[in-house]
């Protein structure tokens, strides 16, 4: 386990190479971060640069004070590479010139660390495979979790979140998973940078032959070109790295599809090295930018090439920041430096690098010179070549860089995945807000409806006219019969006919009134929801997905309401029949027609005489009549039951209406709260597996 609290890959690696005297000028300053490493190297030989390098060293080489699992993890990064052992059979002090020609300081510095590794890795061979499979599983799980949702809502920052998510996935897919399984492959150096910075020219020069097209037209390179030693060409051609990209064996044909990786085998490239000329990241072609970021993520070493004319471009710094956040190991090349102005530009550029927190990267300068046969003069790239070859030749250095980058990337997951998860949480939050709008709209509608069925606002227009007709003509009184006599029948046939007609008319008027009230409330609620969603920043995409009919009540509502209201009327009638036990004193005298009295009860319930229908002397006629018939107690019971029944029926109708909005939310594919939890869990699992 890395013991350092913030492990930052790039700076570490830079330090690893940072001992080249001319450029970085970093003199070894001690091994402050490596105090836990019990190897007896002199401080001056170890990588310098403070806690970062120490943490990285711990990450890769483990810590003596820790136990077997840590050792096995070390093993993971170094793999089963026998090369170091072959090269450095015993952990000899680095000062001992094994290879006398190896005069370069940085190589020595790196090697020093590299040679320590074998004796540690031997401790934990048994655990390695298990560890590795566990880690692979944890990474696979993380990848799947990251792919299992979509950022649907346009909340602030969602673009970044989408990008971060796909970057994470791609990095897992393209780089981390393949890298973990194949450690001994060559060091992949990716040259990224601005258009016109001379990436291809640099590659051509380094390889010594024209492998990548150069020219004055921008952008020049559209397909990434990978140059490696013939021995490794097959691995790159079939290998698991960048599984999503097509492969073409070079030399590059002039016209190839953009998403093809051109692989060129060249003897000029050392065995341990592969150079990748990536497209620019700042030209008008969006796909170039995508490639550039994709390739940046798979780089063991990302060499950012920029020019004296554009080193202040925002895009350059954005990419550098991104690379360092993603745990890449970075080197920078400032090319096309005009003759004579070199010192000022390089100085300013150096200041800017420091200012942006990438000051300890390895820096190179290439002057603006004439280009011949797509190549720079050899002396312009000598420094870069020397450095690259140095790293590549030595398996220990190479593994250090590879492992450090991998460690840096895995470390970056610790912050990047939770960051994505937080964005998912923001989406979940938005979804909840949308759901709350639905809830409150229908809640308000229900409350208003409750009020409207209580304050008498329903008793207007037709309902009132029918009630007047029913009550005023005496039909109401005729529904009460004197017991023992059948006196009602004495009246004319015409009267008898009209009685039930009026009852029926009032009943259907009541039903129609209630129905239209409920339907219009439901319409209103739906409109409110849509209006609320429209106002809400997250509402747009949801409504784009949903059908247009969402803004109005559902087409079946009218039918359902009719059913519900008639069911309620029947229920009230049953109540009157079964519970409306007349007072004993009255029961001896009169019997009644339950249908008519149910209507009287409904009119009373709906608030007759409570508000604007209050007419002098006429208040509460239904209540008084019913009270006289049933007694106050029983009437209250019936009233409460009837009202509760109505409310629950309307509530049910509204619930069904509101479900449609829930479905729209589901259909929009907004992640729910399980997604962020899973992401946190997957990150945790990864940490455990490491």
């Amino acid at each position, binding site marked *: 386990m890395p013991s350092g609290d913030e492990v930052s890959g790039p700076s570490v690696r830079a330090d690893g190479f940072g001992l080249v005297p001319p450029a970085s000028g970093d003199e070894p300053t001690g091994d402050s971060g490596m105090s836990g490493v019990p190897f007896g190297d002199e401080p001056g030989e170890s990588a310098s640069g403070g806690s970062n390098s120490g943490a990285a060293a711990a990450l890769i080489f483990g810590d003596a004070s820790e136990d077997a699992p840590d050792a096995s993890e070390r093993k993971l990064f170094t793999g089963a590479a026998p090369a170091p052992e072959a090269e450095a059979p015993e952990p000899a002090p680095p000062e001992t010139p094994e290879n006398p020609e190896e005069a370069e300081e940085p190589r020595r510095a790196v090697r020093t660390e590299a040679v320590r590794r074998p004796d540690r890795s031997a401790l934990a061979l048994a655990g390695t495979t298990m560890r590795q499979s566990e880690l692979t599983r944890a990474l696979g799980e993380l990848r799947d979790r990251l792919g299992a949702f979509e950022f649907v809502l346009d909340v602030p920052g969602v673009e970044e979140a989408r990008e971060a998510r796909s970057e994470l996935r791609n990095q897992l897919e393209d780089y981390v998973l393949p890298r973990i399984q194949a450690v001994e492959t060559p060091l992949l150096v990716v040259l990224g940078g601005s258009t016109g910075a001379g990436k291809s020219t640099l590659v051509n020069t380094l390889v010594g032959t024209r492998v990548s097209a150069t020219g004055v037209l921008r952008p020049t390179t559209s397909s990434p070109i990978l140059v490696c030693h013939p021995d490794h060409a097959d691995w790159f051609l079939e290998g698991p790295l960048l599984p999503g990209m097509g492969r073409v064996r070079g030399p590059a044909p002039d016209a190839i599809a953009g998403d093809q990786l051109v692989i060129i085998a060249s003897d000029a490239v050392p065995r341990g090295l592969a150079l990748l000329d990536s497209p620019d990241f700042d030209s*008008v072609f969006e796909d170039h930018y995508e490639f550039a970021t994709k390739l940046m993520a798979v780089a063991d070493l990302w060499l950012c090439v920029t020019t004296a*004319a554009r080193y*202040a471009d925002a895009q350059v710094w954005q990419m550098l920041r991104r690379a360092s956040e993603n745990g890449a190991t970075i080197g920078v090349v400032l090319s096309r430096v005009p003759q004579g102005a070199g010192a000022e530009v390089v100085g300013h550029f150096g200041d800017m690098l420091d200012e942006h927190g990438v000051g300890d990267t390895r820096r190179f300068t290439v002057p603006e010179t004439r280009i011949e046969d797509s190549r720079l003069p050899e002396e312009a790239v000598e420094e870069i070549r020397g450095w690259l070859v140095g790293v590549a030749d030595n398996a220990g250095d190479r593994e250090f860089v590879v492992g450090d980058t991998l460690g840096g990337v895995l470390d970056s997951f610790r912050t990047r995945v939770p960051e994505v998860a937080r964005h998912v949480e923001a989406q979940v939050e938005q979804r909840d807000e949308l759901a709350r709008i639905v809830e409150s709209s229908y809640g308000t509608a229900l409350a208003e409806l409750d009020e409207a069925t209580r304050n008498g606002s329903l008793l207007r*227009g037709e309902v*009132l006219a029918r009630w*007047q007709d029913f009550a005023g003509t005496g039909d109401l009184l005729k529904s009460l019969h*004197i017991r023992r006599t059948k006196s009602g029948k004495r009246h004319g046939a015409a009267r008898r006919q009209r009685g039930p007609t009026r009852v029926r008319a009032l009943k259907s008027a009541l039903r129609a009134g209630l129905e*239209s009230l409920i339907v219009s409330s439901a319409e209103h609620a739906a409109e409110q929801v849509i209006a609320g969603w429209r106002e809400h920043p997250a509402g747009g995409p949801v409504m784009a997905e949903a059908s247009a009919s969402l803004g109005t009540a559902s087409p079946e509502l009218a039918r359902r309401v009719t059913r519900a209201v008639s069911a309620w009327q029947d229920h009230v009638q049953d109540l009157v029949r079964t519970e409306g036990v007349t007072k004993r004193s009255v029961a001896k*005298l009169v019997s009644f027609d339950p249908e008519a009295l149910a209507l009287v009860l409904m009119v009373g319930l709906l608030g007759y005489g409570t508000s604007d229908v209050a007419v002098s*002397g006429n208040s509460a006629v239904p209540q008084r009549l019913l009270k006289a018939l049933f007694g106050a107690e029983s009437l209250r019971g019936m009233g409460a039951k009837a009202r509760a029944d109505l409310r629950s029926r309307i509530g049910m109708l509204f619930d069904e209406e509101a479900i449609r909005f829930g479905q729209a939310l589901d259909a929009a594919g907004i992640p729910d709260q399980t997604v962020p939890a899973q992401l946190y869990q997957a990150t945790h699992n990864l940490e455990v597996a490491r």
Partner: protein
Amino acid sequence: MTTSAIPASTGGVARPAPSAAAPEESSAVLLARLDALDRMVQAGTGRLDEPLLADARTLLDRAGERLRLSGDHTVVTFAGGTGSGKSSLFNAVCGLDLSPTGVRRPMTSKAHACVWGLDGAGPLLDWLDVDKRHRYARASALDNSADQSLQGLVLLDLPDHDSIQAVHRAEVDRFVTIADLLVWVVDPQKYADAALHRNYIVPYARYAAVTLIVLNQVDKLQPGEVDDCVADLRRLLEAEGLAEPRIVTTSAVAPDGVRNLRDVLVATVAERQARNARLGTDVERLAERFAAYRGEAAPPSAVPAARRTELIEELSAAAGAPAVAEAMESAYELRAADFVGWPVQTMITRLRSDPLRRMRLTELREELRGAFTGPVGAQQGDVDNALAGVTAGFTDDLPDVWARSVRAAARTHAAELPEDLGAALREAVPTFNQVPRWWWLVKTWQYFLVLVAVLGVAWIGLLVAFGLFELGGADPHPLLGEAGLIPYVAVVAICALGMGWLTSSACRNMVALSSGKHGDRMERHMREQIEQVADHKVIRCVADELTHYTRFRDDVEAARG
């Protein structure tokens, strides 16, 4: 506003052909379009998206300001990426080292201005908000023929737009919005940069007429490469929708390297068209955005007749007009029964057992009789549903916002409608409340008949008493004593009773007839009243909104030019 494509191979510049319209004429056209835009903004307030309206208001303000300020000056901006050589170019055109140049990036951080011809330039520069320290003038003191030809030019050297200094970008954005001629300075290294193309070239693609692309630093290319480079740049620009891009090549270090650029500037300044062309394109671009709210199909000018009829039907139902009429008929008949009914029969009914009396609720009967209070309001739910229906159908063809605003217009008075409908119905009721005179006659007649019957019965009683039982003495009055009169008197009394009953039923039929007639008349009357309410409170509002929309459509067309 014609542009001539410059042949890339020559790198030279053909002067834009002189426009047919004089500056004054094009100003008039521009003003008309700005007026249309102003009306669109007014019509759109509260209806269209606020950001769009805000943009339109900003443009109207800006255009007003710019038109008020010197029309003799042409504001030209040099903008481009860092290191493209804007300042070197600026200095080369000015002929003086006014703007600092160097190798550090970014170099220029504040806009520099150089003016040829000072008259009226001061307020213009104030409006452009150029720092006084960075203003320079090429006035007549430095007179030479070349400067004379650039009379009226306001040249601005802007900071870069792509460096890490975010404030530079804001500065560029500000100037690019108000410049008359946009000059984009690119160099062979950076001409395909996304930052320039995505942020400026593509959004400003419409401004081809007032856009000039300068490929600077051609001295860095081999002679043969220049043409390739220009051709590639042209292809790129055309692909981005910049029609017939004007490209000139320059070199600030080569002798006479900025001739081409200077020629274009001279032509543009002499024409004095760039300002109007630029503002015209601004209006056009905004009008395009407004056009999203302009449906293809012309809207109906009013609510279709069928919808209106439906609305009136539904509002009648909401107010319960037929039910009110029926209730009123019942009330009328009930009242008529008080007058024309046969009192004897009423009395008999009263004597029968009454459930209310037994429940000690007798007064309820009177209250129930008083239930006929006339129409009160209408069902809000029904009204809402009716209003939702009135715009159905023809709003489907309208763009969303307008469909919404038309629907909202229909509902302007939704809350007052129930009351209004109730009031309208009450207007129609009074015909029912009057009591016809013949009811009184009949009533009098009925009571006369009752009196006759009562008298008859009394007479018979007396006859019986006196005649049969000789109560009144031996010799009563012949009319009282003659028992033989009994049958006659009985016949009279029975006839009176019969006639009363007959009168009552005959009158009942008459009442029923006239109540039906009254009911029909009342329903007609109510309908008329409801029609009035519907027209006033619904139909007219919808028609007004449709008129707004129609005008808006015309204005969009006018603003698009």
